């Protein structure tokens, strides 16, 4: 049996090699499913629920793309990847896109030959301390012991920050976030540092979250976004503009509640172009004219997705902060749909 499976796999492999040159969007349409790489589990960003349905902030991007291209937000094969396997999975073509809270850096974009198609979450490294410590700024942490995950960029950022501010600290190296929570709660360190979204998610699991504060300083830039392989710009455009459509929808006031009404036609030309009642933006992208309507219906606009998965109403309770629309003082700025 294994032998016949193996021979079959080799045959399929041979056929697939011939077809590999085809555009990703055609592959996805032919397959009828989007292969989307996600994390094996990160609170609020991607995790299967009790029924095995994937949910989360990154997952919503996959669903929106599937809805735009295939017309069905559930036509997604979620491929869980770890920090170590994610780039190989994308490079080898096992997945069509990766939406796995991946920081956009120069070397990943240029050297690893990927294309980041936008930023869906602006993160940054922060500090959490117990309220009892009486500290209100990271600059007051002179001489503190800090729990830190080893081998990450956060370790380097921390060293830079303390050197720049000419204060001293004692690192307590730990391996995983789970271990960090235990160590921090046990009082093995005065402060815990990792990405601000991770700190918020961690704090939400404490028995008394109100006894811990996240300090206002953000000491690094961690722009997280979906990415695709180099060399298929058409597919990259689909993912990029689906994300932009979600962001623009919030800016233009299109929500999953009023979208049917708005898709019938509005006074705003940009809304009409976005929703396909005017112009031919969908055709240019290689999908039909209702693509953005479906993408927004899949999980709502950016604001709705944020609020449902990681927003202030959820146990994670992240404020919009940098991830507010540019009109509200944030960094989200979708290019015009024209």
């Amino acid at each position: 049996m294994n032998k016949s499976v193996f021979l079959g796999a080799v045959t399929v492999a041979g056929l697939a090699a011939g077809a590999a040159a085809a555009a990703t969007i055609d592959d996805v349409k032919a397959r009828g499913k989007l292969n989307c790489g996600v994390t094996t589990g990160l609170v609020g960003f991607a995790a299967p629920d009790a029924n095995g349905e994937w949910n989360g902030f990154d997952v919503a991007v996959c669903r929106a793309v599937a809805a735009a291209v295939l017309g069905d937000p559930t036509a997604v094969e979620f491929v869980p990847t770890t920090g170590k396997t994610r780039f190989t999975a994308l490079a080898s073509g096992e997945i069509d896109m990766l939406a796995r809270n991946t920081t956009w850096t120069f070397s990943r974009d240029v050297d690893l030959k990927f294309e980041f198609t936008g930023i869906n979450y602006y993160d940054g490294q922060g500090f959490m301390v117990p309220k009892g410590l009486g500290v209100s700024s990271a600059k007051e942490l002179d001489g503190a012991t800090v729990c830190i995950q080893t081998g990450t960029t956060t370790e380097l950022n921390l060293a830079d920050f303390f050197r720049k501010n000419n204060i001293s600290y004692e690192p307590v190296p730990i391996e995983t976030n789970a271990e960090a929570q235990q160590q921090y709660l046990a009082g093995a360190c005065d402060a815990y540092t990792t990405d601000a979204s991770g700190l918020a998610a961690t704090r939400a699991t404490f028995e008394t979250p109100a006894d811990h504060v996240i300090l206002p300083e953000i000491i690094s830039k961690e722009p997280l976004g979906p990415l695709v392989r180099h060399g298929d710009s058409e597919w990259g455009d689909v993912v990029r503009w689906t994300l932009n459509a979600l962001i623009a929808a919030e800016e233009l006031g299109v929500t999953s509640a009023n979208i049917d009404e708005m898709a019938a036609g509005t006074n705003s030309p940009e809304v009409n172009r976005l929703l396909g009642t005017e112009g031919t933006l969908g055709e240019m992208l290689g999908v039909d004219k209702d693509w953005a309507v479906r993408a927004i219906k899949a999980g709502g606009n950016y604001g709705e997705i944020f609020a449902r998965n990681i927003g202030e109403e959820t146990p994670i309770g992240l404020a919009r902060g940098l991830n507010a629309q540019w009109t509200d003082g944030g960094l989200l700025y979708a290019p015009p749909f024209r």
Partner: protein
Amino acid sequence: MSDMHQHSIRFVRETMLPQAAPPVAERGIVKWMRENLFSNLANSILTLLALLAVYYLAVETLPWMLNGIWDAPSIRACREILDGNVGGCFAVLTDRWNQLLFGFKYPSEEYWRPSLAFLLLFAAAAPVMFFKYLPGKLLIFTAIYPFLAYWLIWGGPFLAPVVALLGFVAGYVVWNRFVTSSFAAGFFGAIAAAAVTWWLGGVIVDAVAPENSLLPSVPSRDMGGFMLNMILGVVCVSLSIPFGIALALGRQSSMPIIKWICVIFIEFVRGVPLITLLFVANVVLAYFLPPGATFDLIIRVIIMITAFASAYIAEVIRGGLAALPRGQYEAADSLGLDYPQAMRLIILPQALKISIPGIVNVAVGLFKDTTLVSVISMFDLVGMIRGPILASTDWNGVYWELFGFAALLFFVVCYGISQYSQWLERELTTDHR
């Protein structure tokens, strides 16, 4: 005289004393405690310290276990119910029970299939494990079981496992026919016959497979939970024992090519950490296969773990072979047995008996090592806990309950294996100690 007697002895007992109970300090629980717990000062101190430790452990853990919450939708709800009291949040186990056992993607209406396969595993293993007490005919079910279990767990066309079975049957028939004349003819003839059957069968299965098979097929990617640990553990242990025997015999062979292939394989595989092999299976193979091709991940992992375990078992069995006195080999030769006969009838039964503790050691270790697949994003029991369950907004922060449960499941299986092996050792003793 009698008078004197009467004066010199004041009392003469005329009846036997009834048997009295031993003094309190010399009987029952008190005696046992005096002998075993308080036999001298140092022992007494140690006993008291141990009792203190047990007491503190109980005080710390018992309220946690007894106050545990078994029904709540999330960790926050748990804490609300507990309202500051100490107690475990075991509700995560009831909420995610099926996910812990089967992974989060196995279709829930098909759970009976792996469960049935698990129950049948006992029926299939029993004739091998208790070969002295059960009729040999039951072994036929053991031979069918792998194909049945594959069909139950993976589903798909019924003919596929049938064809796989037929391949082995064809191989066996050819082997039986030619082995009397020449071992090599039987061996290679069997392989050829099996390959031809599989190839022909594969064509036929593809041609006649109905659109909707009796059991809907479940892809390997959807396997998870403790089921995945059991699949990997059972398949790899049962495959690695025959491979290990072959490698051990090959290493002792006088034919240089076979000997050196075996030596290099064993030394290479033993010299590489299992996790490296798993990464090779998962990541590096993807670079060699053409883009878009996915060669079933579970099969890749099974191959790697089996290779790893075979190398270890080969060394254990080599130890058993080396422990046999030279006279046994010479006795076999003097009886005029050829190599396969000598091995099968005289050497291996003794060598394997010596190797049982070592083999069980490897098997238990291997079973626990199957949790390493969680690092290559497969959702075995530990992968389910570390990934989806701890990452859900509902259950992030529940550690002890989940990992304690995983430890319990593994302990039950490993302790069972260990008890069986001790029983088997006693069963097989023929020496007069």
